[in-house]
């Protein structure tokens, strides 16, 4: 591959990184803290390509480049992320990945004591309390003080229909979408057949005490008081 082509590809790739970090699309792929890394990486790519282009233009006759006579056919593959970002723009992980993951135990299981219980700080007062799905599921499964019992909680997530069951689910990521981990709650008593998979909702719910068991993978069941459709949040994941 010619140097000019390599430089064009680097400009496109650096531009792709900058584009997703400025439009906020990067939140579909990595955690928020990576934004400045993406900007720095994109800028370095543009600078390296620019330096090379300027040197090629100013020193046209200077043609010997001893260090890269080897084949660089692999560089063609850089087209793929460029096309993926600019043309396809893959969406955030959704219901397909939830169904793929099956029933897995919530993350807190790793840290909990042998009997599975752990003490969580008391919940603040209030009529309807907003909680992340991860905190809700962890408390539902492991809180020995049963702090969720009788409380109305507002959860945000997307709808997943599995058979005749309807879940509200969301992914937690620790670095990028490759390590995403689904968290879901089974909705009881809500008619969400009109809401397709992956549509985002905000639901006010109440935990059915004792519903998360080892047998159901510690997926809690909730009774639904109200459901409100919302647009997908800017950051589709929990962290």
């Amino acid at each position, binding site marked *: 591959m010619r140097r*000019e082509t390599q430089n*064009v590809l680097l400009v496109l*790739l650096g531009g792709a990184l900058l584009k997703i970090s400025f439009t906020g699309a990067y939140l579909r792929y990595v955690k928020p803290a990576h934004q400045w890394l993406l900007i720095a990486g994109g800028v*370095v*790519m543009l600078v390296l390509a620019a330096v090379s282009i300027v040197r090629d233009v100013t020193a046209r006759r200077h043609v010997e480049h001893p260090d890269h006579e080897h084949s660089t056919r692999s560089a*063609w593959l*850089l087209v793929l992320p460029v096309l993926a970002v600019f043309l396809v723009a893959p969406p955030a*992980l959704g219901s397909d990945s939830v169904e793929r993951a099956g029933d897995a135990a919530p993350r807190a299981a790793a840290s909990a004591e042998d009997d599975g219980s752990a003490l969580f700080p008391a919940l603040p007062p209030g009529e309807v309390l907003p909680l992340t799905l991860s905190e809700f599921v962890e408390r539902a499964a492991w809180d020995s003080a049963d702090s969720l019992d009788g409380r109305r909680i507002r959860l945000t997530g997307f709808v997943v229909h599995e058979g005749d069951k309807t879940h509200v689910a969301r992914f937690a990521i620790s*670095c990028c979408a490759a390590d995403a981990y689904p968290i879901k709650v089974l909705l009881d008593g809500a008619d969400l057949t009109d809401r397709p998979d992956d549509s985002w909702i905000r639901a006010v719910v109440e935990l059915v005490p004792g519903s998360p068991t080892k047998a159901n993978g510690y997926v809690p069941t909730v009774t639904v008081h109200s459901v409100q459709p919302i647009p997908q949040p800017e950051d589709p994941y929990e962290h």
Partner: protein
Amino acid sequence: MTVEAPPDAATEAPPRRRRVTSLEVLCVLLLVALVAQGWITSVLDAPALRTGATIFVAVCVQALPFLVFGVLVSGAIAAFVSADALRRVLPRRPALAVPVAGVAGVALPNCECAAVPVARRLMQREVPASVALTFLLAAPAVNPIVLVATAVAFPGEPMMVLARFAGSMATALVMGWLWARFGRGEWFASRVTRRVPPPAGGHSRWAMFAETARQDLVDAGGFLVVGGLAAAVLNVAVPRSWLDTLGDQVVLGIVVMAVLAVLLALCSEADAFVAASLSALPLLPRLVFLVVGPAIDVKLFVLQAGTLGRRFALRFAPLTFVVAVGCAVGAGVVFL
């Protein structure tokens, strides 16, 4: 565009007056992709493909900034560090220099993809291959960021951090010593072992820095994309739910987790959280997952084969896998 084809296009047809240049190919490719955008998007609309595409972009986007950092370090070594300076720092005998490289890995937080170009550049600066390879294995696995992430992911298990450190460090040292004893220089691609003297003048040093970094980025970036593709396919194809059925079968668990670490190709700062979430398994298989993953995975294998040579990677990668599993089990027996 009537520029003549470059001299390295030896695989193309016998010389004609006017050949298609790669720049034109790229333009046509981009145009076709633009025109066919609707078709491409509709093909990718199947749920599994959509998930795979998201994971592919995620792996690339996550790893590229670290790769950029790596090629800058690699470029700096090429342009500003002389072989003499490195010789003064490192002990003369590789057997002693290997532990120094292991400790250097602790001090330099580095992602595994960034370490590959750096290792290649060290070898060009006449650093023994065994020492450079120890650095390659140690840097992504035992640096402070990874250890803190492990401590956060396993809050109730402080020994997990120690076991991971011991297992990964042992893997790096054993591989370094094994390579010092049995490794052969001819396994590397010829461009790796070719000695490149650093330029003399100040201006040409900066020019060489930029050119080396750019070239490394183009080379390694392509291989990173292959790795990202592999990780995406396997991430979609390997259902994580069947891990839960392994339960308490420790030996089977170790084998499965070691293979999974290779196939999933997670970043070493995130794998601890994935391991923590697989709570149905005992700690030992999960430790194996953490030690094997940063040492060798599909994306790293492709990157090594492309950067250091296929013959090298075909020998180095399987041996690393075996040594890493052994060291992880050893560390687990001692610490867990």
